[in-house]
């Protein structure tokens, strides 16, 4: 009998390990042989720990399971998929999952992330085989034609970046994976690395073959120890089977991959800071130009892409650029792994073609707030993303549509707040966060963020509020146009959006707040 219990960190955070141990113990007690597979998470996070059993009718899910319910599951005959209060039916028929377009996440939660055989049995490494049969320029052209844009947040066309590296001659080039997923409200990188690590490795290997880079680094944040374990195991397995390292699949080409751990600096998610950090320096932002594609890591041409960007490449090579670009809208092609988080009833990972609206995600998928109170605001795109009011909930997820309403899609994280949120406090926090995490290189960010906290404090305190608002807006303009990178440059997004859409929260008059 095959039973799946996730090993994903989110599932573990609510007791999946104890559930797995209880199942093993209960089966032993009953003299039943079970094959316990530790899969990734399906991303239906409100149902974790989500246990699946393999039956003649497919994989049947039960959840959320607690260790003390395990005996009753056995009593009810869950191994045959029989009824129980926790039974959710065939996992792939759960509407939240069924109504997704899982391209990048096709295997996550399905396979055993430690098993290369399982990866191969589920169409793994077909992208690499396709890439090996093509000349490098054609591989780059496929990525360009797919319309894939950087999923880390900046949405720069991946193919253009690859082409630049490819066209720059050098004795050494690098592929760097930005796995410093620091934005609040995001975890899709983590889920890929823990739930389907071979996919990222395959994507990076293809990038290496396409651009002539023979070495790669995954810059992983320390906060993701489980991802480190999963990637280490996958790299060992891939090298052992000839998919990574010297002479990949007998092609004569090679690609070496190393993991490097970050050390708790949000700014290292900015690509040039990340490169400095990899070189062993303070993670301070570099001036651009030169672009990393021309002079990146150790001064060499470097492709630096987010986890999801690289993990989207294998399917493009396997199914073709056209297949991928047929998903999506406008200039946002393909799918986006959306992370629905915060105060939401059904939080999780939703991979959809671009074009789905916030409202669909919040209510059809999310089921409204966790607290049951009205949703008042959502912050999309991490700590540098705008706070959006209800009137903007019909905005489709599309890079350009978000930009048009003064917001940004970023890495696809949506943080939901109910009507108890104080947007003035959130705006203050945005400035405080910028002050804590600023690398200190440019003045608008380093000093502006601290002044920003002070001005917001005076504004909320009612000290000559009208004037303080003018100062705050002026300060935000300076940060927007004067900062060296997105940290200082985008911190005004949450601040100004909060001020524009929720001015009543900034009033020092309790009556004004109560009246709303």
């Amino acid at each position, binding site marked *: 009998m095959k039973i799946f219990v996730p090993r994903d960190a989110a599932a573990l955070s609510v007791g999946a390990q104890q559930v797995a141990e209880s199942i093993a113990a209960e089966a032993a007690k009953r003299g039943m042989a079970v094959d316990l597979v530790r899969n990734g998470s399906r991303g239906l996070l*409100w149902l974790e720990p989500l246990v699946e059993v393999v039956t003649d009718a497919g994989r049947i899910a039960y959840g959320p399971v607690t260790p003390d319910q395990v005996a009753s599951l056995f009593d009810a005959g869950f191994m045959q998929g029989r009824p129980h209060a926790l039974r959710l039916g065939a996992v792939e028929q759960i509407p939240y999952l069924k109504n997704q377009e899982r391209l990048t996440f096709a295997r996550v939660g399905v396979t055993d992330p430690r098993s290369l055989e399982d990866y191969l049995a589920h169409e793994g490494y077909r992208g690499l085989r396709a890439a090996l049969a093509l000349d490098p320029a054609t591989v780059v052209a496929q990525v360009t034609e797919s319309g894939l844009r950087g999923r880390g947040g900046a949405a720069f066309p991946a193919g253009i970046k690859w082409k630049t590296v490819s066209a720059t001659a050098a004795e050494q080039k690098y592929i760097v994976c930005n796995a410093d997923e620091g934005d609040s409200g995001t*975890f899709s990188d983590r889920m890929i690395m823990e739930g389907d690590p071979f996919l990222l490795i395959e994507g990076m290997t293809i990038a290496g073959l396409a651009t002539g880079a023979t070495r790669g680094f995954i810059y992983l944040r*320390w906060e993701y120890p489980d991802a480190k374990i999963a990637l280490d195991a996958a790299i060992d397995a891939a090298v052992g089977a000839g998919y990574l390292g010297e002479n990949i699949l007998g092609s004569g080409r090679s690609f070496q991959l190393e993991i490097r751990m970050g050390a*708790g600096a*949000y700014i290292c998610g900015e690509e040039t800071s990340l490169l400095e950090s990899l*070189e062993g320096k303070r993670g301070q932002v570099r001036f651009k130009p030169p672009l990393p594609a021309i002079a990146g890591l150790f001064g060499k041409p470097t492709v630096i892409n987010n986890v999801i960007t690289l993990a989207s490449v294998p399917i493009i090579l396997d199914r073709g650029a056209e297949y991928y670009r047929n998903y999506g809208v406008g200039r946002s092609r393909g799918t986006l792994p959306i992370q629905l988080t915060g105060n939401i009833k059904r939080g999780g990972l939703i991979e959809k073609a671009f074009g789905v609206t916030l409202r669909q995600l919040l209510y059809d998928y999310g089921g409204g707030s966790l607290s049951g109170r009205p949703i008042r605001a959502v912050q999309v795109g991490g700590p540098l993303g705008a706070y959006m009011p209800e009137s903007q909930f019909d905005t489709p997820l599309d890079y350009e549509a978000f930009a048009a309403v003064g917001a940004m899609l970023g890495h696809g994280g949506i943080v939901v707040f109910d009507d108890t949120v104080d947007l003035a406090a959130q705006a203050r926090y945005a400035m405080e966060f910028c002050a804590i995490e600023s690398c200190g290189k440019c003045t608008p960010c380093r000093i502006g963020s601290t002044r920003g906290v002070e001005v917001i404090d005076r504004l909320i305190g009612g000290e000559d509020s009208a004037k303080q608002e003018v100062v705050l807006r002026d300060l935000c303009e300076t940060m927007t146009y004067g900062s060296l990178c997105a940290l200082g440059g985008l911190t005004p997004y949450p601040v100004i959006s909060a001020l524009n859409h929720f001015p009543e929260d900034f009033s020092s008059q309790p009556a004004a707040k109560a009246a709303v």
Partner: protein
Amino acid sequence: MSQKSSLRAIPIRVESASSLAAAERAAVLEVCTRLKTLAGPLLPILHGVQRALGHVPQDAVPLIAAELNLSRAEIHGVVTFYHYFRKNLPGRHVVHVCRAEACQSVGAVALEAHAKKSLGIDFHQTTRDGSISLGPVYCLGNCALGPSIMIDERLEGRVSPERFDAIVAHARLPGGTR
């Protein structure tokens, strides 16, 4: 030309003002020897030192500097840039409480206040019995199941004040880790 190469040959003398105990010194040197041939070795070395000693002691800085042929100022600059590297020995367990927005939306501010009150310490401090150090963290990637904390390298989700106390109490048991 010949002048230039003779300049390069001047050995850098390291004044070892280090008051590091012999065992700690040996541990730092072991990490440096093992990792210094990596491309960009400094962060891996600092991680290795913190793993071996629980922190990066001030007195390890000149040793690392000598091993990498860098200035102490450069090493100091890197150590102090990153929030993760600690100057002081932590308690037996390190608890990081998430302060980021997704956790805020489900009660992280109250959890942070509770954690400080219940342990009787502020961030970057250690309880008097040496069992728990407390620190902030900005996102643990568990944003749909907040509020979240990390105790040592284990993630915990949906952490109510009561659950926080239970997790900490369990960690404080003799020999209690998990």
